[in-house]
């Protein structure tokens, strides 16, 4: 038997084995496991948007550039992979049909000059990118890789490097042997062939064949290993981005009807689309880097959450989900700030599965005493302070003229005040200032007085879905009696749920409002339309903190900044601003829970970040919980002399 015949047979067998193993493993993970999951209607619809998404986020590698250099490296590895997949195809064909022609070339693909040039250069870029990646992984070893499978990562980089080098050597030797008709188009390959040019033809042939077998072997081995680890994302990334959840981030899906069990306590209770996420995680750790819970106590890492869920899924839930795969402590640490979901290049959703598991913990009463008490107070009094709902509007008693009761007379703007703005002694002054500013602007507004309850945003995110439903019902009942056009609120959490979740909960039967505004948006409009005029220019140098539920969740970044500039203040941005803003740590019900051991509170880290800005004397916030957290942090970091925390309304008030 000739060598070429053996080659063809071996390649055929290798192909069958490799594809067989790969196929079997992929089938088990994607088909068998995913089928155990619940339906995912959110993965479908809006096809145009989805195609656009694939182009922006996969083809153009959109979010990867948020971390610039590694992102660029990956861009080249990705595109290199696409381009060079044709060379792999060519290599397979060459081996498979070796018994016909030892230098079998695929039509077009195998003989196109410009394509060959592109492939040569991409191979070089990939080598450079992989070298950088190896340097990053082995030398720099950044924090975000902590917990990721290091040896797996290095091994795959080694595979890619080998594939590239063997390809170039193989091509180079072909050029040396004069067997390449388009050798002029492969300068890089020619370069790689040079070291072997001195050997005799026989030896070069052997080296070439070794390079070939090594190339094919590593490719096929890599293929079989693909479904076993983070590199499965090579297969799952396109469907993951294509089928991503297009619901607004601030809307959680409605919980299934109560059937005796609540939330997720076993892996097959997740939706299949969530399971696809678990397989898509590349362990890149970008989410971990921006997670405030990870920074403060290293208990929760969104990346490790995904990896653990994948582990459990692969083992078919052999271990109970909670507490063996994921501890209760991890689940309670999340502030739902959305930094992880925002950062993930493949749109993996970390918060939704976490809330699903929290729903289970709540149903079992597995929470700390402080949270239990807060929920009991919310359930009974509709606020987390445990104060009578009759006192909800006590803050308004001293406001003259008396604020309209929206339950009794029609108003243009319904001001949904919120818990902290109504009850917290350190915030009520700001609420009164807001009322005065609204009055100065001649706004026709009213409040619900005792009819208002906690909006429920964080109650839902803590996992008490039933209580959320009750609060929504009560608020909708109060609002449906009122007559108004627009809702305005000073609380971004309330803003988020009123805008995105209340219409969903009301089943679209009742048209709630024309729009829901955060007061920064309203102030912005009032200023630009001239209804609010400033009498002086404040010359403060300030910095602005983007609240999570206003910024990341709802994209409102510009309006508050315009308001600040309109007051005459000079705005200096913190390094982490806009959608990179660091959460204050109060969200997701964290403000109702025991703190536990902390290395550094996110609120304190944030204040230090602001204090490091030269000349900045005022830290501006636009959320009552932010005000509470940051004023505390100024005290605990001893920064009273350095920074003052002010609400946006205070600047506006002063400038009037």
């Amino acid at each position, binding site marked *: 038997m000739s060598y070429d015949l053996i080659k063809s047979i071996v390649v055929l067998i290798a192909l069958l084995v490799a594809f067989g193993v790969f196929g079997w493993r992929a089938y088990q993970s994607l088909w068998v496991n995913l089928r155990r999951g619940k339906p995912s209607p959110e993965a479908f619809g809006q096809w145009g948007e989805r195609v656009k998404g694939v182009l922006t986020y996969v083809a153009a590698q959109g979010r990867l550039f948020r971390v610039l250099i590694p992102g660029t490296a990956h861009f080249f590895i990705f595109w290199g992979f696409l381009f060079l997949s044709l060379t792999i195809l060519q290599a397979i064909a060459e081996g498979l049909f070796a018994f016909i022609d030892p230098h079998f070339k695929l039509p077009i693909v195998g003989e196109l000059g410009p394509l060959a040039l592109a492939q040569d250069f991409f191979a070089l870029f990939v080598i450079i990118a992989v070298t950088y990646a190896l340097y990053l992984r082995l030398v720099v070893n950044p924090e975000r890789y902590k917990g990721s499978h290091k040896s797996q990562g290095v091994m795959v980089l080694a595979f890619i490097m080998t594939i590239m080098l063997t390809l170039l050597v193989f091509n180079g030797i072909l050029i040396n042997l004069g067997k390449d008709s388009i050798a002029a188009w492969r300068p890089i390959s020619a370069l790689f062939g040079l070291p072997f040019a001195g050997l005799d033809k026989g030896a070069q042939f052997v080296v070439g064949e070794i390079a070939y077998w090594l190339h094919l072997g590593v490719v096929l081995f890599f293929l079989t290993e693909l479904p076993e680890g983070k590199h499965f994302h090579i297969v799952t990334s396109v469907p993951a981005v294509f089928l991503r959840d297009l619901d607004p981030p601030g809307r959680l899906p409605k919980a299934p009807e109560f059937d005796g069990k609540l939330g997720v306590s076993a892996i097959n209770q997740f939706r299949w689309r969530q399971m696809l996420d678990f397989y898509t995680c590349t362990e890149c750790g970008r989410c971990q880097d921006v997670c405030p819970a990870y920074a403060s106590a290293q208990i929760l890492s969104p990346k490790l959450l995904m990896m653990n869920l994948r582990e459990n899924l692969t083992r078919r839930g052999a271990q109970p989900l909670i507490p063996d795969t994921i501890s209760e402590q991890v689940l309670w640490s999340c502030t739902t700030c959305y930094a992880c979901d925002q950062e993930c290049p493949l749109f993996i959703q970390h918060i939704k599965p976490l809330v699903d598991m929290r729903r289970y913990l709540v149903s079992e009463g597995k929470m*700390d*005493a*402080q949270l239990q008490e807060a929920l009991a107070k919310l359930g009974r009094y509709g606020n987390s302070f445990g104060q009578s709902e009759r006192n909800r509007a006590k803050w308004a008693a001293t406001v003259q003229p008396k604020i309209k009761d929206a339950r009794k007379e029609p108003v243009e703007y319904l001001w949904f005040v919120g818990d902290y703005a109504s009850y917290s002694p350190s915030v009520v002054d700001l609420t009164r200032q807001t009322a005065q500013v609204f009055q100065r602007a001649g706004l026709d507004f009213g409040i619900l007085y005792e009819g208002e309850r906690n909006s429920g945003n964080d109650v839902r995110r803590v996992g008490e879905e039933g209580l959320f439903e009750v609060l929504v019902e009560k608020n909708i009942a109060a609002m449906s009696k009122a007559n108004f056009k627009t809702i305005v609120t000073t609380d971004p959490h309330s803003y988020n749920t009123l805008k995105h979740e209340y219409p969903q909960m009301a089943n679209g039967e009742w048209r709630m409002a024309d729009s829901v505004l955060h007061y920064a948006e309203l102030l912005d409009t009032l200023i630009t339309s001239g209804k609010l005029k400033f009498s002086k220019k404040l010359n403060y140098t300030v910095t602005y903190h983007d609240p999570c539920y206003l910024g990341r969740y709802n994209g409102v970044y510009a309006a508050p900044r315009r308001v600040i500039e309109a007051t005459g203040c000079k705005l200096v941005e913190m390094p982490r601003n806009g959608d990179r803003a660091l959460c204050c740590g109060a969200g997701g019900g964290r403000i109702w829970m*025991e*703190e*536990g051991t902390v290395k550094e509170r996110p609120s304190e880290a944030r204040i230090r970040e602001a204090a490091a800005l030269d000349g900045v004397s005022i830290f501006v916030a636009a959320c009552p919980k932010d005000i509470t957290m940051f004023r505390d942090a100024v*005290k605990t970091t001893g920064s009273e002399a350095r920074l003052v925390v002010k609400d946006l309304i205070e600047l506006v008030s002063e400038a009037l």
Partner: protein
Amino acid sequence: MNPDIFVVVEHLRGQVSDLSYVMLAAARAAANATGGKVVAVLLGHDAEALARDLAADRVLYIEHAAFADFSSDAYQRTLENVIKEQSPRAVLFGDTTMGGDVAAWLSTHLNLPLVSACRTLRADAGALKFVSQICGGKMMAEGDLPGPTALVMMVPGGYKPDQGHAAQPPELVRGTAPALDDLRVTVKEYIEPAVGDVDVSKEQVLVAIGRGIQNQDNVELAEELAKALGGVVAGSRPVIDQGWLAPTRLVGKSGKAVKAKLYLALGISGAPEHTEAIGDSEMIVAINTDPAAPIFDLAKFGAQVDILDLMPVLAEKVQQAKGLA
């Protein structure tokens, strides 16, 4: 009609409770109005000596082995007879773990009216009036003491225990207990509180924390303040129930009574079950964000600031003051 006022003395392990002396003082006030005698009823086993400083005109001592421990059954059966025979104007019990087991049962059994949570008894135009405190100490209820025989459960605070101590031992009369075999309620063993920890009843400076401490982590702030002041941390019931402090630190009805030189009540509302145990302290300072908290009725000084903010600042200032001294 028997104008006498009876007091059921409470004692545990050889010690008469402070509340018993308070009740004797109250009984004296009532007896002065009715023109009757104060009779202390003492049920015990080899316990005559306990009668020696009771400020009563007469002590009715009933001896029985069953009285070595407190059994609701034994007390019910014995006192039932005493009251039926004597029909005094009033019988005072402690509103406590002992009196609570007995008084209400007797009220139903003997069809006699009962007033509980009573702080004071006073005379008003020949009639006896009671004042009780209810609703967590936020409400006082006053009325005529029903007759001809009324049962009264008393709480501390209306009288000083000193007023119930006698210089001379009172007259002792012996009574007989009914048959007390076949008791349905018997004490099998005692479980002592943890030893080796501090005894808050002997401490001079106490930093007491209540619900306002919010969670376990903040207890540390109180520890630091206590250390700076040279005292120890104590707590009210909610704090002990949550496990944030050892039961030995409980100050209150089910815990210890304290006589501190300085009692700093932080985030404590001042419910009677707690305040009844701190009244003997020289100076009480209360910090609570609720201006209507009943603790402010007992405290000499108060403030409405946040205790979580105050504790570290105060600890530092105390340390500074000590550093300079």
